[in-house]
Protein backbone atom coordinates (compact mmCIF):
# COMPACT_ATOMS: atom_id res chain seq x y z
CA UNK A 1 0.00 0.00 0.00
CA UNK A 2 2.85 2.34 0.94
CA UNK A 3 4.56 1.55 -2.39
CA UNK A 4 1.36 2.37 -4.27
CA UNK A 5 1.00 5.69 -2.43
CA UNK A 6 4.63 6.59 -3.15
CA UNK A 7 4.28 5.60 -6.80
CA UNK A 8 1.12 7.69 -7.14
CA UNK A 9 2.86 10.64 -5.49
CA UNK A 10 5.87 10.25 -7.77
CA UNK A 11 3.68 10.09 -10.88
CA UNK A 12 1.62 13.07 -9.74
CA UNK A 13 4.70 15.16 -8.95
CA UNK A 14 5.16 16.52 -12.48
CA UNK A 15 1.60 17.82 -12.46
CA UNK A 16 2.05 19.41 -9.02
CA UNK A 17 5.41 21.04 -9.69
CA UNK A 18 5.92 24.13 -11.76
CA UNK A 19 8.87 25.96 -13.21
CA UNK A 20 10.89 28.14 -10.84
CA UNK A 21 12.53 30.40 -13.41
CA UNK A 22 15.10 30.69 -16.14
CA UNK A 23 18.73 31.69 -15.62
CA UNK A 24 19.94 34.18 -18.22
CA UNK A 25 23.43 34.11 -16.67
CA UNK A 26 25.44 31.31 -15.08
CA UNK A 27 27.96 33.27 -12.96
CA UNK A 28 25.48 35.95 -11.89
CA UNK A 29 22.26 35.61 -9.94
CA UNK A 30 19.13 37.51 -10.96
CA UNK A 31 16.78 39.51 -8.74
CA UNK A 32 13.42 37.76 -9.44
CA UNK A 33 12.67 34.85 -7.12
CA UNK A 34 10.73 31.66 -7.87
CA UNK A 35 6.92 31.72 -7.50
CA UNK A 36 5.52 30.17 -4.31
CA UNK A 37 5.08 26.41 -4.59
CA UNK A 38 7.43 26.01 -7.56
CA UNK A 39 10.17 23.36 -7.54
CA UNK A 40 13.04 23.13 -9.97
CA UNK A 41 16.13 20.99 -10.34
CA UNK A 42 19.21 22.83 -11.59
CA UNK A 43 22.31 20.99 -12.67
CA UNK A 44 25.46 23.09 -13.03
CA UNK A 45 28.70 21.82 -14.59
CA UNK A 46 31.83 23.98 -14.79
CA UNK A 47 34.93 23.00 -16.69
CA UNK A 48 38.01 25.01 -15.68
CA UNK A 49 41.21 24.83 -17.71
CA UNK A 50 44.56 26.13 -16.53
CA UNK A 51 48.19 25.65 -17.49
CA UNK A 52 48.51 21.86 -17.52
CA UNK A 53 45.39 21.12 -15.48
CA UNK A 54 41.65 20.60 -15.93
CA UNK A 55 39.00 20.64 -13.20
CA UNK A 56 35.29 19.84 -13.43
CA UNK A 57 32.80 21.07 -10.80
CA UNK A 58 29.29 19.63 -10.59
CA UNK A 59 26.51 21.22 -8.52
CA UNK A 60 22.96 19.97 -8.14
CA UNK A 61 20.42 22.43 -6.80
CA UNK A 62 16.81 22.01 -5.75
CA UNK A 63 15.16 25.41 -5.94
CA UNK A 64 11.91 26.00 -4.06
CA UNK A 65 9.68 29.09 -4.11
CA UNK A 66 8.55 29.73 -0.52
CA UNK A 67 6.66 33.00 -0.89
CA UNK A 68 6.42 35.59 -3.66
CA UNK A 69 9.65 37.12 -2.39
CA UNK A 70 11.55 34.29 -0.69
CA UNK A 71 13.34 31.42 -2.42
CA UNK A 72 15.20 28.46 -0.91
CA UNK A 73 17.96 26.56 -2.67
CA UNK A 74 19.42 23.27 -1.46
CA UNK A 75 22.67 21.90 -2.88
CA UNK A 76 22.85 18.30 -1.72
CA UNK A 77 25.54 17.21 -4.19
CA UNK A 78 28.63 19.28 -4.78
CA UNK A 79 31.31 17.31 -6.62
CA UNK A 80 34.54 18.11 -8.36
CA UNK A 81 37.07 16.20 -10.45
CA UNK A 82 40.68 17.30 -10.58
CA UNK A 83 43.05 16.11 -13.28
CA UNK A 84 45.67 15.32 -10.65
CA UNK A 85 43.49 13.95 -7.86
CA UNK A 86 40.29 12.28 -9.08
CA UNK A 87 36.79 12.86 -7.72
CA UNK A 88 36.13 14.81 -4.54
CA UNK A 89 32.89 15.34 -2.62
CA UNK A 90 32.74 18.98 -1.55
CA UNK A 91 29.75 18.79 0.80
CA UNK A 92 26.41 20.54 0.56
CA UNK A 93 24.98 24.01 0.85
CA UNK A 94 21.80 25.94 1.56
CA UNK A 95 20.90 29.35 0.12
CA UNK A 96 18.13 31.86 0.70
CA UNK A 97 17.24 34.71 -1.65
CA UNK A 98 14.94 37.51 -0.55
CA UNK A 99 13.56 39.85 -3.20
CA UNK A 100 13.26 43.47 -2.08
CA UNK A 101 12.18 45.27 -5.26
CA UNK A 102 11.17 44.56 -8.83
CA UNK A 103 13.48 45.14 -11.83
CA UNK A 104 10.63 46.29 -14.09
CA UNK A 105 8.48 48.69 -12.07
CA UNK A 106 10.98 49.82 -9.42
CA UNK A 107 14.06 51.92 -10.27
CA UNK A 108 16.26 48.89 -9.52
CA UNK A 109 15.34 45.30 -8.69
CA UNK A 110 17.21 44.30 -5.54
CA UNK A 111 17.58 40.88 -3.92
CA UNK A 112 19.64 39.71 -0.96
CA UNK A 113 21.38 36.34 -1.09
CA UNK A 114 22.94 34.22 1.64
CA UNK A 115 24.55 30.82 1.18
CA UNK A 116 26.15 28.56 3.76
CA UNK A 117 28.31 25.63 2.59
CA UNK A 118 29.51 22.91 4.91
CA UNK A 119 31.92 20.05 4.23
CA UNK A 120 34.55 18.11 6.12
CA UNK A 121 37.04 20.67 7.44
CA UNK A 122 35.36 23.40 5.44
CA UNK A 123 32.80 26.10 6.23
CA UNK A 124 31.88 28.88 3.85
CA UNK A 125 29.57 31.87 3.91
CA UNK A 126 28.64 33.73 0.74
CA UNK A 127 26.57 36.94 0.83
CA UNK A 128 25.41 38.80 -2.26
CA UNK A 129 23.66 41.98 -3.18
CA UNK A 130 21.87 41.41 -6.47
CA UNK A 131 20.79 44.42 -8.53
CA UNK A 132 18.93 44.09 -11.81
CA UNK A 133 17.16 46.34 -14.27
CA UNK A 134 15.07 45.24 -17.23
CA UNK A 135 14.83 47.57 -20.23
CA UNK A 136 12.54 46.10 -22.85
CA UNK A 137 14.41 43.06 -24.16
CA UNK A 138 17.54 43.89 -22.17
CA UNK A 139 18.41 42.53 -18.72
CA UNK A 140 21.27 44.31 -16.92
CA UNK A 141 22.53 42.56 -13.82
CA UNK A 142 25.05 43.36 -11.07
CA UNK A 143 26.21 41.16 -8.16
CA UNK A 144 28.43 42.24 -5.27
CA UNK A 145 29.65 39.24 -3.28
CA UNK A 146 31.52 38.74 -0.01
CA UNK A 147 32.85 35.24 0.58
CA UNK A 148 34.45 33.99 3.77
CA UNK A 149 35.82 30.47 4.18
CA UNK A 150 37.37 28.52 6.99
CA UNK A 151 39.17 25.28 6.23
CA UNK A 152 41.77 22.72 7.23
CA UNK A 153 42.02 21.05 10.64
CA UNK A 154 40.19 23.04 13.29
CA UNK A 155 39.05 25.45 10.55
CA UNK A 156 42.16 27.46 11.30
CA UNK A 157 42.87 28.65 7.74
CA UNK A 158 40.76 31.64 6.77
CA UNK A 159 40.33 33.20 3.37
CA UNK A 160 38.20 36.00 2.05
CA UNK A 161 37.08 37.15 -1.35
CA UNK A 162 35.22 40.13 -2.72
CA UNK A 163 33.69 39.88 -6.13
CA UNK A 164 31.75 42.18 -8.38
CA UNK A 165 30.06 40.87 -11.48
CA UNK A 166 28.25 42.63 -14.29
CA UNK A 167 26.13 41.00 -16.97
CA UNK A 168 23.94 42.04 -19.87
CA UNK A 169 21.50 39.80 -21.70
CA UNK A 170 19.43 40.51 -24.81
CA UNK A 171 16.32 38.49 -25.63
CA UNK A 172 16.37 37.64 -29.33
CA UNK A 173 13.08 35.75 -29.02
CA UNK A 174 11.02 34.59 -26.00
CA UNK A 175 13.06 31.36 -26.10
CA UNK A 176 16.55 32.61 -26.87
CA UNK A 177 18.86 35.15 -25.20
CA UNK A 178 22.50 36.05 -25.66
CA UNK A 179 24.68 38.14 -23.40
CA UNK A 180 27.99 38.81 -21.70
CA UNK A 181 29.30 38.28 -18.17
CA UNK A 182 32.18 40.05 -16.48
CA UNK A 183 33.74 39.08 -13.12
CA UNK A 184 36.24 41.03 -11.04
CA UNK A 185 37.63 39.21 -8.00
CA UNK A 186 39.73 40.42 -5.08
CA UNK A 187 41.22 37.46 -3.20
CA UNK A 188 42.47 37.84 0.38
CA UNK A 189 44.38 34.80 1.68
CA UNK A 190 44.20 34.95 5.52
CA UNK A 191 42.13 38.11 5.03
CA UNK A 192 45.29 39.98 4.05
CA UNK A 193 45.95 41.85 0.84
CA UNK A 194 49.73 41.31 0.79
CA UNK A 195 49.67 39.35 -2.46
CA UNK A 196 47.33 41.79 -4.28
CA UNK A 197 45.49 38.98 -6.06
CA UNK A 198 43.07 40.41 -8.62
CA UNK A 199 41.32 38.24 -11.18
CA UNK A 200 39.28 39.44 -14.13
CA UNK A 201 37.16 37.11 -16.26
CA UNK A 202 34.89 37.98 -19.17
CA UNK A 203 32.97 36.13 -21.85
CA UNK A 204 29.72 35.54 -23.74
CA UNK A 205 26.67 33.50 -22.79
CA UNK A 206 23.64 31.99 -24.47
CA UNK A 207 20.36 30.84 -22.93
CA UNK A 208 17.59 28.75 -24.44
CA UNK A 209 14.27 27.85 -22.77
CA UNK A 210 11.32 25.76 -23.82
CA UNK A 211 8.28 24.71 -21.80
CA UNK A 212 9.58 23.46 -18.43
CA UNK A 213 13.34 23.41 -19.07
CA UNK A 214 16.17 25.75 -19.90
CA UNK A 215 19.88 25.59 -20.62
CA UNK A 216 22.37 28.43 -20.22
CA UNK A 217 26.06 28.31 -21.19
CA UNK A 218 28.80 30.83 -20.42
CA UNK A 219 32.41 30.78 -21.64
CA UNK A 220 34.83 32.91 -19.63
CA UNK A 221 38.46 33.75 -20.33
CA UNK A 222 40.84 35.17 -17.76
CA UNK A 223 41.96 38.71 -18.63
CA UNK A 224 44.54 38.76 -15.83
CA UNK A 225 47.53 36.50 -15.42
CA UNK A 226 46.99 34.79 -12.07
CA UNK A 227 48.82 31.44 -12.29
CA UNK A 228 46.52 29.38 -10.00
CA UNK A 229 43.31 30.57 -11.65
CA UNK A 230 41.70 29.01 -14.72
CA UNK A 231 42.62 30.57 -18.05
CA UNK A 232 39.32 29.39 -19.50
CA UNK A 233 36.02 28.31 -17.90
CA UNK A 234 32.86 26.91 -19.41
CA UNK A 235 29.75 26.71 -17.24
CA UNK A 236 26.47 25.06 -18.23
CA UNK A 237 23.31 25.20 -16.13
CA UNK A 238 20.42 22.96 -17.07
CA UNK A 239 17.13 23.59 -15.26
CA UNK A 240 14.13 21.32 -15.21
CA UNK A 241 10.76 22.17 -13.69
CA UNK A 242 9.85 18.46 -13.28
Amino acid sequence: MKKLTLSTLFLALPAMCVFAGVRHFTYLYEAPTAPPGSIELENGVTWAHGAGWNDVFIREEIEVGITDRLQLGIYPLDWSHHSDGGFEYNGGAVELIYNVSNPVVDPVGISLYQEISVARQHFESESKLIAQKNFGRWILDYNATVEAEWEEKGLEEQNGELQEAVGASYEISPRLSIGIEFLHEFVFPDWRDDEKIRNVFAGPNISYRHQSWFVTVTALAQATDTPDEADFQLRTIFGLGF
Partner: protein
Amino acid sequence: MTNPHLNPLPQPEGEEDAKRLARVPRLVLTLSLISISQLASCESTNYVPPVTAKMASANSRRQDVDPSTHSTDAQGRPSLPPRRANTTSLAKLHEGRTLFVHRCIECHTLPAMWRYTTKDWIEIVNSMSHRASLKPAERDAVIAYILAVRATER
Protein backbone atom coordinates in the same frame (compact mmCIF):
# COMPACT_ATOMS: atom_id res chain seq x y z
CA MET B 1 74.45 63.16 -18.31
CA THR B 2 71.13 62.23 -19.90
CA ASN B 3 68.04 64.38 -20.04
CA PRO B 4 65.22 62.53 -18.22
CA HIS B 5 62.62 64.28 -20.41
CA LEU B 6 64.21 62.91 -23.55
CA ASN B 7 64.79 59.43 -22.19
CA PRO B 8 62.14 58.67 -19.62
CA LEU B 9 62.92 55.68 -17.47
CA PRO B 10 60.90 52.65 -18.65
CA GLN B 11 58.33 51.44 -16.12
CA PRO B 12 58.47 47.83 -15.02
CA GLU B 13 56.13 45.70 -17.19
CA GLY B 14 54.19 44.31 -14.23
CA GLU B 15 53.39 47.81 -13.03
CA GLU B 16 52.08 48.82 -16.46
CA ASP B 17 49.92 45.70 -16.64
CA ALA B 18 48.51 46.40 -13.19
CA LYS B 19 47.63 49.97 -14.20
CA ARG B 20 46.01 48.77 -17.40
CA LEU B 21 43.98 46.17 -15.49
CA ALA B 22 42.90 48.70 -12.88
CA ARG B 23 41.27 50.67 -15.71
CA VAL B 24 39.17 47.69 -16.90
CA PRO B 25 36.52 47.71 -14.12
CA ARG B 26 36.23 51.50 -14.43
CA LEU B 27 35.72 51.15 -18.17
CA VAL B 28 33.06 48.45 -17.69
CA LEU B 29 31.26 50.59 -15.09
CA THR B 30 31.34 53.65 -17.37
CA LEU B 31 30.05 51.66 -20.35
CA SER B 32 27.31 50.15 -18.15
CA LEU B 33 26.17 53.59 -16.98
CA ILE B 34 26.13 54.91 -20.56
CA SER B 35 24.14 51.84 -21.71
CA ILE B 36 21.65 52.23 -18.85
CA SER B 37 21.05 55.91 -19.62
CA GLN B 38 20.65 55.15 -23.33
CA LEU B 39 18.30 52.24 -22.70
CA ALA B 40 16.24 54.20 -20.20
CA SER B 41 15.46 56.80 -22.81
CA CYS B 42 14.72 54.50 -25.72
CA GLU B 43 11.40 53.02 -26.75
CA SER B 44 12.31 49.53 -25.64
CA THR B 45 11.76 50.45 -21.97
CA ASN B 46 9.06 48.34 -20.35
CA TYR B 47 5.62 49.83 -20.42
CA VAL B 48 3.63 48.59 -17.44
CA PRO B 49 1.36 51.51 -16.54
CA PRO B 50 -0.14 51.79 -13.05
CA VAL B 51 -3.79 50.84 -12.62
CA THR B 52 -6.29 53.68 -12.96
CA ALA B 53 -10.03 54.01 -12.45
CA LYS B 54 -10.28 54.58 -16.19
CA MET B 55 -8.96 51.04 -16.75
CA ALA B 56 -11.58 49.55 -14.45
CA SER B 57 -14.39 51.30 -16.24
CA ALA B 58 -12.97 50.73 -19.71
CA ASN B 59 -14.59 47.34 -20.02
CA SER B 60 -18.04 48.88 -19.96
CA ARG B 61 -17.09 50.40 -23.29
CA ARG B 62 -14.81 47.68 -24.66
CA GLN B 63 -16.49 44.80 -22.80
CA ASP B 64 -13.41 42.67 -23.09
CA VAL B 65 -11.27 43.29 -20.04
CA ASP B 66 -12.66 40.80 -17.54
CA PRO B 67 -11.74 37.25 -18.53
CA SER B 68 -13.74 35.85 -15.61
CA THR B 69 -16.82 36.57 -17.69
CA HIS B 70 -15.37 34.85 -20.74
CA SER B 71 -16.81 31.69 -22.12
CA THR B 72 -14.53 28.65 -22.28
CA ASP B 73 -13.79 26.28 -25.12
CA ALA B 74 -14.04 22.48 -25.12
CA GLN B 75 -10.75 22.14 -23.18
CA GLY B 76 -11.91 24.59 -20.53
CA ARG B 77 -9.62 27.38 -21.75
CA PRO B 78 -10.99 30.91 -21.86
CA SER B 79 -12.07 32.01 -25.29
CA LEU B 80 -12.92 35.48 -26.54
CA PRO B 81 -15.21 37.48 -24.25
CA PRO B 82 -18.94 37.74 -24.75
CA ARG B 83 -20.48 41.10 -25.56
CA ARG B 84 -21.91 42.08 -22.22
CA ALA B 85 -21.29 44.86 -19.76
CA ASN B 86 -19.31 44.19 -16.58
CA THR B 87 -16.89 45.93 -14.27
CA THR B 88 -13.41 44.83 -13.40
CA SER B 89 -12.48 45.79 -9.87
CA LEU B 90 -9.46 47.96 -9.24
CA ALA B 91 -8.18 45.35 -6.78
CA LYS B 92 -8.20 42.70 -9.49
CA LEU B 93 -6.31 44.93 -11.89
CA HIS B 94 -3.75 45.77 -9.19
CA GLU B 95 -3.28 42.05 -8.51
CA GLY B 96 -2.97 41.39 -12.24
CA ARG B 97 -0.28 44.06 -12.65
CA THR B 98 1.69 42.77 -9.65
CA LEU B 99 1.58 39.21 -10.94
CA PHE B 100 2.43 40.32 -14.49
CA VAL B 101 5.62 42.12 -13.43
CA HIS B 102 6.70 39.45 -10.94
CA ARG B 103 5.86 36.08 -12.46
CA CYS B 104 6.46 36.65 -16.19
CA ILE B 105 10.00 38.04 -15.82
CA GLU B 106 11.18 34.86 -14.11
CA CYS B 107 11.54 33.32 -17.57
CA HIS B 108 11.56 36.16 -20.14
CA THR B 109 11.38 39.91 -20.53
CA LEU B 110 7.97 41.57 -20.82
CA PRO B 111 6.69 41.98 -24.38
CA ALA B 112 5.02 45.21 -25.43
CA MET B 113 1.27 45.19 -24.80
CA TRP B 114 0.62 45.91 -28.46
CA ARG B 115 2.74 43.05 -29.78
CA TYR B 116 -0.13 40.56 -29.63
CA THR B 117 -3.87 40.73 -30.26
CA THR B 118 -6.45 40.38 -27.49
CA LYS B 119 -7.10 36.79 -28.54
CA ASP B 120 -3.37 36.01 -28.60
CA TRP B 121 -2.83 37.49 -25.13
CA ILE B 122 -5.53 35.28 -23.65
CA GLU B 123 -4.00 32.20 -25.24
CA ILE B 124 -0.44 33.16 -24.26
CA VAL B 125 -1.23 33.83 -20.61
CA ASN B 126 -3.35 30.69 -20.43
CA SER B 127 -0.60 28.54 -21.92
CA MET B 128 2.04 29.90 -19.54
CA SER B 129 -0.07 30.10 -16.38
CA HIS B 130 1.03 26.68 -15.08
CA ARG B 131 4.72 27.45 -15.55
CA ALA B 132 4.22 30.81 -13.81
CA SER B 133 2.41 29.04 -10.95
CA LEU B 134 -0.74 31.12 -11.54
CA LYS B 135 -4.03 29.93 -10.07
CA PRO B 136 -7.10 30.40 -12.33
CA ALA B 137 -8.16 33.60 -10.55
CA GLU B 138 -4.62 34.97 -10.78
CA ARG B 139 -4.44 34.09 -14.47
CA ASP B 140 -7.71 35.97 -15.02
CA ALA B 141 -6.35 38.99 -13.14
CA VAL B 142 -3.24 39.09 -15.38
CA ILE B 143 -5.38 38.91 -18.53
CA ALA B 144 -7.75 41.56 -17.13
CA TYR B 145 -4.83 43.93 -16.51
CA ILE B 146 -3.30 43.43 -19.97
CA LEU B 147 -6.61 43.93 -21.73
CA ALA B 148 -7.45 46.95 -19.58
CA VAL B 149 -4.15 48.58 -20.56
CA ARG B 150 -4.83 47.84 -24.21
CA ALA B 151 -8.32 49.31 -23.87
CA THR B 152 -7.21 52.58 -22.32
CA GLU B 153 -3.63 53.37 -23.26
CA ARG B 154 -3.81 53.54 -27.01
